[in-house]
């Protein structure tokens, strides 16, 4: 595939040129961290970051998203009708998304876009987005992407892979969408520069590895009943930090809110850590205690998902949950425990 050289002095000009055809999103530093936001006209993404504090999932799947609206005001033409909210589906491009966050969209896609169910809002937002990723030349010590089917130069979720090479970017064209965005910016200097060496170098810097090979052969109920969950869950606060910061967590909750004569039906991110998660109308919750909730999070990512889709774990190894958990619950350690679990006499299996 083609590699285009983009001189950094042509970066701002190219983005400006392309901005008539794209809404740009990129990492911006605010307070103590970088996060993705829609860039104002002329605003440049700030690439001086290792990874954003929160993942880029909100670009396609916002924490709060209005789906329907209504009005009870009889003076209005459409009163008493639930109407779909109008959305801005104009083409967008996410600049500087890390390969892990981009490949997370492919995992999440299984939930929102599959033969039985297509989520209209997620699908529209996803399809209108071009992912121009930024390779990680210096992965963090807590990233374990290469153990999670991803990598610092992984291209699978991307349309363009940008590699920072000092005074220029090397842009590897991955898809037709990516080619179009580069063309719109007027970047067309093809080069035979090789990014393989940089890729090898970055991969060799990954220092964190997690074994996942035995997960699929474990018996679900044995893992479910394993004795280690009590200890693993003890410190957990049941906050939403891990699930909200995770690029692959997709659960949401639907809420109605009204004010005066109008109202909306929206969806908000949900978290398996929260007391309302899976709470039944009867008041019963099959995941009613801390141990249930913690086990749900890890079993979903590392066992149910593995079994259901046969394509690895529901995690891309970005390491956010490890870095942000206030009590240092570390998915790498839990994964190791699950992967190496052998039921012992005394565990309450079956």
């Amino acid at each position, binding site marked *: 595939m083609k590699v285009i050289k983009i001189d950094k002095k042509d970066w701002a000009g190219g983005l400006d040129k392309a901005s008539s055809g794209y809404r740009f999103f990129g990492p911006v530093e605010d307070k*103590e961290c970088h996060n993705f936001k829609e860039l104002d006209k002329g605003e440049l993404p700030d690439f001086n970051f*290792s990874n954003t504090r929160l993942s880029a999932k909100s670009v396609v799947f916002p924490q709060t998203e209005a789906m329907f609206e209504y009005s009870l005001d009889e003076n209005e033409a459409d009163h008493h009708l639930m109407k779909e909210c109008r959305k801005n589906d104009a083409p967008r491009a996410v600049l500087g998304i890390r390969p892990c966050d981009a490949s997370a969209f492919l995992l999440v896609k299984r939930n929102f876009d599959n033969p039985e169910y297509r989520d209209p809002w997620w699908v529209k937002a996803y399809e209108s987005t071009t992912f121009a990723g930024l390779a990680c030349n210096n992965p963090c010590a807590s990233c374990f992407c290469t153990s999670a089917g991803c990598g610092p130069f992984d291209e699978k979720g991307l349309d363009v892979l940008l590699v920072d090479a000092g005074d220029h970017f090397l842009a590897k064209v991955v898809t037709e969408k990516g080619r179009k965005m580069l063309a719109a910016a007027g970047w067309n200097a093809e080069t035979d520069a090789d990014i393989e060496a940089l890729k090898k170098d970055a991969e060799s810097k990954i220092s964190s590895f997690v074994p996942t090979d035995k997960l699929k052969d474990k018996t679900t109920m044995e893992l479910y009943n394993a004795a280690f969950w009590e200890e693993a869950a003890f*410190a957990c606060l049941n906050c939403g930090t891990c699930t909200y910061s995770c690029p692959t967590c997709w659960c949401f909750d639907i809420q109605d809110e009204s004010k005066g004569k109008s109202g909306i039906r929206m969806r908000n991110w949900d978290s398996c850590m929260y007391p309302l998660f899976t709470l039944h109308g009867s008041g019963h919750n099959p995941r009613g205690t801390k141990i249930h909730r913690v086990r749900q999070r890890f079993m979903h990512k590392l066992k149910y998902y593995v079994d259901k889709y046969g394509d690895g774990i529901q995690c891309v190894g970005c390491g956010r949950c490890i870095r942000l958990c206030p009590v240092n619950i570390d998915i*790498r350690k839990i994964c190791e425990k699950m992967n190496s679990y052998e039921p012992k006499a005394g565990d309450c299996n079956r």
Partner: protein
Amino acid sequence: MSNYTDKIREISERLLKEGRVDMVIGFKQGTMPMMNEPCFVKKPEDVSKLVWDSHCGINLANYLTDRKEKIGVIAKGCDSRNIVTHIIENKIKREQLVIIGVPCKGMIDRRKIASMSDAEILSVAEQNGKVIVKTKDAEKRYERTDLLQKNCALCVHRNPVIYDELAADLVEEQKNVDRYADIREIEAMPPDEKWHLFDDLFSACIRCYACRNACPLCYCPTCFVDESRPQWVGKSTDPIDTKTFHFLRAYHCAGRCTDCGACERACPVGINMRLLTRKLEKDCFESFGWEAGLSLDQRPPLDVYKTNDPEDFIK
């Protein structure tokens, strides 16, 4: 700090062996720099898991709520004050506890250390009052006293107020600390500036509730923000709902908060919600001469009725 660890292990082993407790709640070595994980130990042979250093900022009183066992709990000054509050509020019984007091020299501010360097922090160690911070290409040394968590720099109760065992000699308390300089500044602001300050303060909040859940005071079976029948507070990222959560939570902590700093430490986006709880702490101190969790014999000012209460606020 290694002598603290040794002593904690020694006491814990003895308590477990003698059958005086069913479990000891403490910290085990974390997997990330400046992080330890709260844990329990049930067997004497496992006490080597327990560690103590300057990264034990999570408040362990939070792990006692409604437990039925006999528990040995490691408690620095602030934890001990929250344990007192827990006992007063019937969340645990004094007889269930063997409190292993840790005279505290303050916890290290992990955010401050992270913010001082562009490079990833690989390790943080301590030697003779110096903190040694390693990144990939550099090793820097700092005075420990310059790196304390904000609440620890202001702390005037470093020694546990209640304990059965001690992991070290009592430490000297900090004197002449001006706890509320920043709060006075906010009090003096005109309303629109205050408004702006609070808008900005909570603008990055993602409603993850780590602050609430790290707090030993927040033990309600159903928090008002989780109440759904009927629903009291909206669940979206609407800034009004977010601020409603923060202001109400702060008021629920009035006269109970010990400024242990667990909330701010837990926040994934670095919000200083302690500005709210400390304002209420200041008000309680000024109106009632009250500091939370110092004694088992006195109930917090907001849950008692006294005929001689000062009522200066009613004009």
